């Protein structure tokens, strides 16, 4: 970021200017991503490596979180439904909650924490140690190699992780329901999918894609524009997570409103 020359401006004005400049730079970063996404060369190997780190390495954490989410949510929902004698609605309730909201949101938050901080810190350390500048000098497009691969990996892996998370959460819910209500697997599946529509699945998929893209782009941006030496690395990792999570919640609200308009 270029230093602001008008030093005689009030502090608030400087901050407002800084905010708009940051917004401009972010949109420039995003537009550069879309400009270069279909241009050769494709860094396939790096993309697969990133998929491995973002997707496969996140799988145990996502599975554990999903299982606990399903199990705990079922346990917490049971007393309320039991008051009406409607515990048979648990599969339906849990599946709606998981498919429509929990699976994409929990996956995104976990990834924002794990992947976002990782990308932010990695790129920031590369930036402050001038590795990115060195790549540019050696005729490697650092944007394509570092940003494109990570953002694409995040965007693709997050929906897949969401599917795993949803499945494992449903397994967790089934375990609890089976132990308490002795519901069979067939009945559970039938009831779970009764109140879910294709729109719900599509909306979750879109959410996961958007969240993945957000995590990737925010983390890469923060890492790519890190400064102030090693301090900047930690700050970049921290800001990546915070901004990613904040944006995920904002996007959640917007997407839910849009889906409800279509529904």
């Amino acid at each position, binding site marked *: 970021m270029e230093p602001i020359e008008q030093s005689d401006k009030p502090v608030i004005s400087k901050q407002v200017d800084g905010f708009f400049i940051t917004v401009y730079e972010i949109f420039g970063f995003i537009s550069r991503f879309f400009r270069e996404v279909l241009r050769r060369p494709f860094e396939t*190997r790096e993309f*697969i*490596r990133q*998929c*491995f780190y973002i*997707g*496969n390495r996140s*799988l145990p954490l996502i599975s554990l979180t999903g299982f606990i989410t399903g199990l705990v949510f079922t346990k917490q929902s049971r007393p309320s439904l039991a008051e009406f004698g409607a515990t048979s609605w648990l599969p339906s309730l849990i599946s709606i909650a998981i*498919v429509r909201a929990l699976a994409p949101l929990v996956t995104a938050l976990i990834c924002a924490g794990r992947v976002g901080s990782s990308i932010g810190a990695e790129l920031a350390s590369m930036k402050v140690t001038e590795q990115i500048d060195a790549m540019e000098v050696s005729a490697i497009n650092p944007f394509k190699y570092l940003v494109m691969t990570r953002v694409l990996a995040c965007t*693709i*892996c997050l*929906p*897949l*992780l969401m*599917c*795993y998370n*949803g*499945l494992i959460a449903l397994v967790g819910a089934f375990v609890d329901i089976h132990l308490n209500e002795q519901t069979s697997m067939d009945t559970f*599946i*039938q009831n779970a*999918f*009764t*109140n*879910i*529509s*294709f729109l719900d*699945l599509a909306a979750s*998929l879109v959410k996961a894609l958007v969240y993945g893209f957000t995590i990737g782009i925010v983390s890469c941006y923060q890492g790519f524009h890190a400064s102030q030496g090693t301090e900047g690395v930690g700050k970049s990792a921290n800001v990546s997570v915070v901004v990613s999570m904040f944006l995920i919640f904002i996007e959640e609200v917007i997407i839910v409103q849009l889906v409800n308009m279509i529904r």
Partner: protein
Amino acid sequence: MKTADSRRATTVGIFIILGLIIFATAILILGGQKKAFIQSVQIKAIFHDVGGLSRGNNIWYSGVKVGTIKKITFMDLSRIEVLMNIDKNARPFIHKDVRARISADGLVGNKIIALDGGTAQTAPIEDGDVIIVEPSISTDEIMNTLQVNNKNLVAITGNLKDIMENLVAGKGSLGKLMKDSSVYEQLDRTLAILHKTAGNTQQFTRDLTGYTARLQRPGVLANDLVSDTVVFSRLRNTATQLQEVATRANQVAHDLQSVTTDVKGRLNSDESPAGVLLNDSVTARQLQQTIRNLESSTGKLDENMEAVRHNFLFRGYFRRQEKQRKKEEKKQQKELQRQ
């Protein structure tokens, strides 16, 4: 390095494929439930009120899900056309005269269209058919009825409150009964009398039962009267005869009355012999004289008869008679001794 890369790529590939399989499975299960991947027949029904039915809601035929709502469109001010996708496999069992009504899949469940009825005489449904709609009671109507019930309940509880207040205040018959001890004592006495009466009634009933049992015993007159047709017939004959006798007695009494009147007339008359005897004083004096003459004649005749007995001409006759009499007396005595 290359081996590590290839292993990593394989792992990523497996990860991606598994994720896609999970997603595809979800779509397939959902598609199976929503009957999205089946061949279907489209039929229509026209409702005045769909009661919150929406696209994708289920269609049940005899409690089995056979399709989903495809589209809901307004036809005019009060008519709504509902387009339904019906599973082609269920088509042979759903006939053209089937009736559609708006229902719910539970007490607070989703709205559905329930198909009922249909006869084998009509053909199965075909694409584009418009089926008959059966009016159904909406939740609003149920709530309106409940509202009326609530109002009635409020009125009833109000009345009950008044009654209870009166009771507590000791007003009215029940209130007095609860508060006034004299009424209670009176009631207690009445109850005691009633109790006694009930005992008497019980005894009476027992007696009556015994009496009835005796009446029902075969051979008893009452039982014969009721059950024996011969006795009853005889009684009827007797009654008939009695009636005849009474008729005759009546006739006789009438005759006697006329005779008595006649006799009375004649007795009062001087022309008949009895009338003369009863009413004529001259004849009475003559009769008295005649009786006196007869008395003196009888006395003289007795004297003559005594003289005849001592006459030798008749003495033998009287002796024979005396002997005969004595002989019969002896005979009688002997018979008595034998006995």
